[in-house]
């Protein structure tokens, strides 16, 4: 299959390119940028006039809910949501049931994903057995099965000794460890940012220092062990400052933020709207602004969807009892574009945070449109708006704080390895 994407605006952050260029694809790879290679004759021409042609989006956190939570979502429903959102590579956290602490589970997941032939899937392995924080999981076995790094997802960080040993062990083999920095005892019973809103609503608070104390512990251990650590879902201004200082110090750390947290704050909870019950909690506007600044200056490497399908019943409960999380695979691009517009960030810099930068964190060679690359491409209309409704969302989960919003950026075509896996041209 030879594809000619014609007349589009090519935006490739890795190469600093934002210019009108045609893209030529053959045998699943990019074979020409601007000019067709000799003898190229397209089987299909995609008219990209007025559209942006960008690398496929790399999402560092998307729960697909298999195995174990198929009533919330399935691999197929969520992979379809992914490509509908222009996401061609996604990282799945290990918090399935059972958790991804065994090579067999990882292999099965990868096999199932592959047979669907939609997006590329990279599992995170559990850092500890059953994610209980006591015994190390078999990291090398999991690595061989295809895990890109190791994580506790949102499960509590192991005790400091186990954490130290886990980081040492991971460093021995050069593995990366992904941690959501939150001190479990300080977060216990909390469902919202410990501040004025939680006080008014009488909701259990999670103080900002639950994040900074965990960060301080992990950073101290990174200094000793030299482990590559990726901090998942920063939420506080102080946390951003700590990661900024750690990077300046030269520590091998990276960080991401969930798209919801780039836009929302605890005030948006309103009168107990469970769609705003997220982990980590939405914090103050000051925190949100610091997250935005951290994204703009590169302290935060990536925006992820933190996609978490939740069934409707689990949200139709009092706030504290509701299941936290929001879907986001189909909103990652629109919310990134909205941030770019709000913060006056260029399109090329904004797209870097969902393509080349997360690919760098993952140490995979994708996330850009270089010649010879696997042709993962997202073609979208930056001027069109999408209206977020339950019917519009392809994800099985309809839980998002952005229901009813109009957001910029409509994906028209998604290509994975040179195949058109999603198309929604203007009618």
């Amino acid at each position: 299959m030879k594809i000619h994407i014609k007349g589009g605006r090519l935006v490739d952050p890795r190469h600093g390119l934002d210019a009108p260029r045609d893209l030529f694809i053959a045998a699943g790879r990019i074979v020409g940028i601007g000019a067709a290679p000799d003898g190229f004759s397209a089987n299909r021409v995609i008219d990209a006039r007025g559209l942006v042609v960008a690398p496929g989006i790399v999402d560092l956190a998307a729960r697909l809910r298999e195995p174990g939570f198929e009533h919330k979502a399935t691999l197929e429903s969520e992979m379809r949501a992914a490509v509908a959102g222009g996401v061609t590579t996604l990282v799945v956290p290990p918090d399935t049931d059972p958790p991804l602490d065994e090579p067999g589970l990882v292999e099965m997941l990868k096999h199932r994903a592959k047979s669907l032939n939609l997006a590329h899937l990279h599992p995170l392995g559990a850092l500890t057995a059953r994610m209980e924080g006591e015994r190390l999981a078999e990291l090398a076995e999991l690595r061989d099965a295809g895990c890109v790094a190791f994580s506790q997802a949102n499960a509590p960080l192991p005790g400091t000794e186990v954490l130290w040993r886990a980081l040492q062990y991971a460093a021995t083999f050069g593995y990366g460890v992904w941690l959501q920095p939150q001190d479990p005892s300080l977060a216990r019973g909390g469902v919202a940012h410990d501040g004025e809103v939680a006080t008014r609503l009488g909701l259990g608070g999670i103080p900002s220092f639950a994040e900074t104390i965990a960060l301080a512990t992990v950073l101290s251990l990174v200094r000793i062990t030299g482990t590559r650590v990726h901090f998942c879902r920063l939420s506080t201004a102080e946390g951003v400052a700590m990661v900024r200082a750690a990077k300046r110090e030269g520590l091998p750390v990276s960080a991401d933020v969930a798209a919801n947290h780039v836009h929302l704050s605890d005030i948006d909870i309103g009168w107990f709207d469970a769609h705003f019950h997220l982990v980590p909690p939405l914090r103050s506007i000051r925190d949100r602004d610091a997250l935005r600044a951290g994204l703009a200056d590169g302290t935060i490497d990536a925006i992820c969807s933190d996609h978490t399908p939740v069934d409707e019943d689990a949200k139709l409960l009092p706030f504290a009892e509701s299941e936290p999380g929001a879907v986001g695979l189909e909103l990652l691009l629109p919310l990134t574009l909205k941030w770019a517009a709000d913060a006056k960030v260029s399109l090329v810099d904004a797209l870097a945070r969902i393509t080349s930068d997360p690919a760098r964190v993952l140490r995979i060679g994708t996330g850009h449109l270089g010649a010879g690359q696997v042709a993962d491409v997202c073609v979208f209309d930056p001027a069109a708006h999408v209206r977020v409704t339950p019917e519009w969302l392809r994800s099985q989960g309809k839980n998002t704080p952005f229901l009813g919003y109009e957001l910029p950026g409509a994906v028209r075509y998604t290509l994975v390895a040179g195949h058109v896996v999603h198309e929604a041209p203007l009618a």
Partner: protein
Amino acid sequence: MRNPQLNAKGELRHLLTIEGLPREILLQILDTAKSFLGVTEREVKKVPLLRGKSVFNLFFEPSTRTRTTFEIAAKRLSADVVNLAISTSSQTKGETLLDTVDNLSAMHADMFVVRHASSGAPFLIAGHVKPHVHVVNAGDGRHAHPTQGLLDAYTIRHYKQDFTRLSVAIVGDILHSRVARSLIHALTTLGTPDVRVIGPQTLLPTGVERLGVSVHHDMAAGLRDVDVIVMLRLQNERMRGPLLPSAGEFFKAYGLTPEKLALAKPDAIVMHPGPMNRGVEIDSSVADGAQAVILPQVTFGIAVRMAVMSILAGASA
């Protein structure tokens, strides 16, 4: 965002929290309650305002006092009252909160009086019921207990008349107290210029001063020249642990004794939402003393709850 308690005309449809309610509605409730106080003192203690209506007391958390006063209030309005104590066990059997509400709605409930351990639960119910059904929050988690806040305001008005020149101190476990939150909103809405909260740092919620109160850790300083003292109940499970070392140590610093009471204005009143822990937050001689208005609070509570239910039912006197 429209206040979910008000209908399009700005009338009270549900009573879920005092926060955000206009002053006029609070005064309407207090004035209506005053007119009902006479009813409770008559020989035939009934008015027909809720005749033919069904009030369901839906208590997901145990309560005798509050449930009883709601029951009496509804019966004095001639409503049919159904009391349901729903243990959390029926919820663990798989029936969700809204399933329960749907089932009871099918029995033609006109009003739900809801107590629930989770903050916000009555909002969920209010957003779910049919338009003619009303919801009264009888206490949700740490969030709100609006009829208690209103009866406290009623009591203060009864003894002190004008809210706009008062100093009010609320003492004790503010962190876990829905009573304190509702009273603070009532007082600030009614124009009380000086509302103080007094307690150790461990029992004050983050950012409480943003509710419009001043914060005191020293009880003597906090009580100086106040007109009203509201003592909060300290729950047993809070008396020892990471928040407090012991009930005795709490009493030493924050218990209301005659000596501390003497720091307030000579005509200051002492209130308590009950049930009291004598010797933990309040000395018996104060609880039974001349300045205590704790029992009148209970009487006023019935009139206030009658007022709320009759206004919600659109049958205000």
